[in-house]
C-alpha cells in the first residue's frame, strides 16, 4: 500500500495497464509531454513513448472518433477530455457511434474505449469547468458510466474500465483530486493521506463496474449519492445525528439496484444527492427505481438534493453547490415526515 491522491491513483492505473497491455494507448489535449493539465498522465509519455501517449489537437470529436478507429484496430485507447464541459463536440461520436458499434454490427465489432474526464464543481471553474453530465451519458444505451469518490476506487475502477470490452465514460470529480471535501470551502484543505481510501495498492487490482458501496452503514435513512457528494453527505449525516446509511453508487451503468433496494427496504427513508442540476438528473432514475421497488417499505417521500437548475455560476459557487446545509435540511424533512 502507498499513499496516493486521486491523480496519483489514476496515473498508477494507466501505468499498470500500459505495462500489462501494449495495446493501451493514451490520447488527449496536453496529456503527452506536459502530462495533462491535472497531471494525471505525468511521466507516462517519457516511460512509454510518444506513440503510446499522444498529444491531440483541440478537437474532442476528433479525439473520440480516432480513439474509436484505434479500438477497431486492436488497441485499447484511453482518451482524456480535458473537462467534461468540453465533451459535447464529441457527443455524436459517443452516442451514435461508440455506444452502438457492438449493437449495430450484431456483435461483430466492438469499441473498447475509455473516456476519462474531470467533472463537477467546487474549484471556481464557473459554468464551463464545473458541469456534471453523468445523466446525459447514462441515458444512452450502450455506454457504461462510472464516477469514483476516492483514490482506491479511482484506480481499481479505471483498471476495470480499461479492461472492459465495452465503452466506458469515466467521470472524475475534480474537487476530490487532491483530497476529500466535505462541502465546506472555508475549512483548510484535507489531504488523502488522512483518509483510509488514500491507501492504494501499487499493482493491479479491480473495482468492478456495477457495484455500489455502503460507505456508512445505518438504519434510519438511506442516502444515495456519488462523487464529491459522498463526502458531503457523510459529514452531513454525522452532523444531523441520524443513523444514516450512505451508499456510494460508483457506477451509473450498470446500476447496482440490489444494494439500493435492500438498503431502502431496511431504512424506509431515502434521499438522493448529487451535484448535477436536479431536473432530469440521475437522481430521478434512482428515485423512480426506489419508488417501484420499495414503495410499501417507505415511511416518507423520497427527496432529492441537487444543484439548482441553473448553469454553475462563478460568483455564487457556494450558493449553487448542494452543501451540508441542503443535505441536513433534507435529512430533517425526511425524518420528520409521517
Amino acid at each position, binding site marked *: 500500500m502507498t499513499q496516493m491522491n486521486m491523480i496519483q491513483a489514476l496515473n498508477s492505473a494507466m501505468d499498470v495497464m500500459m505495462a500489462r497491455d501494449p495495446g493501451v494507448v493514451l490520447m488527449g489535449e496536453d496529456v503527452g509531454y506536459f502530462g495533462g493539465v491535472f497531471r494525471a498522465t505525468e511521466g507516462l509519455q517519457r516511460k512509454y513513448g510518444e506513440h503510446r501517449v499522444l498529444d491531440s*489537437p483541440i478537437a474532442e470529436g*476528433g479525439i473520440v*472518433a*480516432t480513439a474509436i478507429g*484505434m479500438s477497431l484496430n486492436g488497441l485499447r485507447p484511453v482518451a482524456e477530455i480535458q473537462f467534461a464541459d468540453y465533451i459535447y463536440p464529441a457527443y455524436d461520436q459517443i452516442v451514435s457511434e461508440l455506444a452502438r458499434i457492438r*449493437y*449495430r*454490427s450484431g456483435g461483430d*465489432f466492438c469499441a473498447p474505449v475509455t473516456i476519462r474526464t474531470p467533472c463537477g464543481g467546487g474549484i471556481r471553474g464557473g459554468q464551463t469547468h464545473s458541469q456534471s453530465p453523468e445523466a446525459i451519458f447514462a441515458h444512452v444505451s450502450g455506454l457504461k458510466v462510472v464516477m469514483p469518490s476516492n483514490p482506491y476506487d479511482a484506480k481499481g475502477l479505471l483498471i476495470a474500465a480499461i479492461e472492459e470490452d465495452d465503452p466506458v465514460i469515466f467521470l472524475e470529480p475534480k474537487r476530490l483530486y487532491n483530497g476529500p471535501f466535505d462541502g465546506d470551502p472555508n475549512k483548510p484543505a484535507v489531504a488523502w493521506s488522512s483518509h483510509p481510501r488514500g491507501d492504494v495498492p501499487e499493482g493491479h487490482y479491480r473495482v468492478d463496474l456495477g457495484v455500489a458501496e455502503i460507505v456508512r452503514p445505518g438504519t434510519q435513512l438511506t442516502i444515495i449519492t456519488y462523487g464529491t457528494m459522498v463526502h458531503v453527505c457523510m459529514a452531513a449525516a454525522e452532523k444531523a445525528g441520524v443513523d444514516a446509511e450512505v451508499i456510494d453508487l460508483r457506477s451509473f451503468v450498470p446500476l447496482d*439496484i440490489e444494494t439500493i433496494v435492500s438498503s431502502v427496504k431496511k431504512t424506509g427513508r431515502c434521499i438522493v444527492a448529487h451535484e448535477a442540476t436536479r431536473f432530469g438528473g440521475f437522481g430521478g432514475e434512482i428515485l423512480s427505481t426506489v419508488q417501484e421497488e420499495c414503495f410499501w417499505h417507505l415511511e416518507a417521500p423520497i427527496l432529492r438534493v441537487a444543484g439548482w437548475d441553473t448553469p454553475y455560476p462563478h460568483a455564487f459557487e457556494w450558493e449553487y453547490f448542494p452543501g451540508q446545509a441542503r443535505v441536513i435540511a433534507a435529512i430533517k424533512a425526511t425524518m420528520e415526515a409521517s
Partner: protein
Amino acid sequence: MMRSRLHVPRPPARPGEKPDFSYVALSPAGAAARPDPNAPLNDTEFLSRELVRVLDDDHRAVGPWDPHLAAPDLELGLRHMMLTRVFDDRMHRAQRQGKITFYIKSTGEEAVSVAANMAMRPSDMLFPSYRNQGLQIARGRNIVDLMCQLLSNTRDMCKGRQLPVMYHSVEGNLFSISGNLATQFPQAVGWAMASAIKGEDHIAASWLGDGSTAEADFHYALLFAQIYKAPVILNVVNNQWAISTFQTFAGGEGRSFASRGPGYGMPGIRVDGNDFLAVYAVTQWAAERARMGAGPTLIEHVTYRAAPHSTSDDPSRYRPKDDYEHWPLGDPIERLKSHLIALGEWSDEHEKTLVKQCEEQVNQAWREAVTHGTLTDGPQLDPEIMFQDVFKEQTPSLARQRMQLAQELKERAQK
C-alpha cells in the same frame, strides 16, 4: 455605395430548365502530370484543380496516370460494376414491391467503389458510406448476405437492428456503416493511426459525399490524418447532390473539394470518378504514398448521382429530369466497356452474356435470401435478440426487460 449582400447558392438548373454542367471544370484525358507519390506538397497541388482522366474520347487509355491494367483485370472491374448495377436495380424494385423497406442505389458511381477497392489490398480496412455497395461486391461479399441484411431476416448480419444497406463484414475488412453522416471518416483515420502505432503495413480508406464534407467530422479527419501522417485514403464522392442540396452548399463553389487537402497539408486529387482507370490510378498512388509512410491523401471523385438519393426521394422535384443524360463525364460502365471494345477484348455478345449472368446470379441469390425470411413472411428473428449486444454481457436491468418482453409476447400470442 457598396453593400454586403447575402449570397445563396443555386444549382445551374431546376426542373423544366435545360441541364447545364458548364460549371464542371474539365481537363483533357492524359493532360495531368503524375508526380511521385512522395513529392513535396507544392508539386502535387495542381492535382486539386485539374481533373485526372485516363480514358479519352476514343476510349483509349492515355497519359502518365494510365495504370496499364491487363485485360482480365479490366473485365473483372466491369463485372463487379455490372453486378453492382444489376443488384441495385433488383433491390430498388424489391423496395417498390414492398419486399424491403428502403434502398439506396449507387447508379453512375460504381467505378468510385469498384476501381478503388481493386487498387487496394484485401487486408486494408474500408470505412464505407451508404452508397459504396461496389466495395462489398468487389470484396467478394456473398450477395445473399447483403440481401439478408436488406430483408432484416434470420440471417441478417445486423440481427435486424440496422436500416437496409448498413452492411458490415469482419472477414471482408468492411466496417459497419452508420446512418449518421461523416462519422466513419475520422474513425478510418484512427484505424490507420493504430496501424502505424503497431508498425503494420495495412492502410485504411473511407468515403463520404460532397454534402457530408460540411460536417465537423470531415475536418477532424483531415486534421488528424495530416498531423499524424496516418496511412489513410480519404475519398469525397462529389456526386453533386446531397438529397436536394446542391454541392455548392457544402462549399463546392469556387474551390474544389480536393483543394481542402492542400489546405491541411496533404495532396488533394480531383479525379474523373466515372473513369475506372483514373480512379484505379489515383487510389494506387495514394495507397503507395500511405504505405511508404508519406501520409494521407484526399481524393475528390467527380461523378453524378444518377439515381434518387434513396427510395424515399424524388429528384424530379428539384433537378431536371434529363440531367444525367447531359452529364459530361458519361457512365462508368459504358466507358470501361467501350475501352475494352477499343482494345479488341470485348463485344456486344460478351456484354449480353455478362448482363444475363449478373441477372441470374442476383435472381438466384434473392430466391435463396427470402428463404431465410422477409419482414412479413417465413422464418422470423426472435425479438428478444434486441437485448443482445447492447453490452458484451447483458446487464441485470436489460435481462429484466427481456423477460418483460417475453411475457408481453406470450400474452400477445394467446390472444
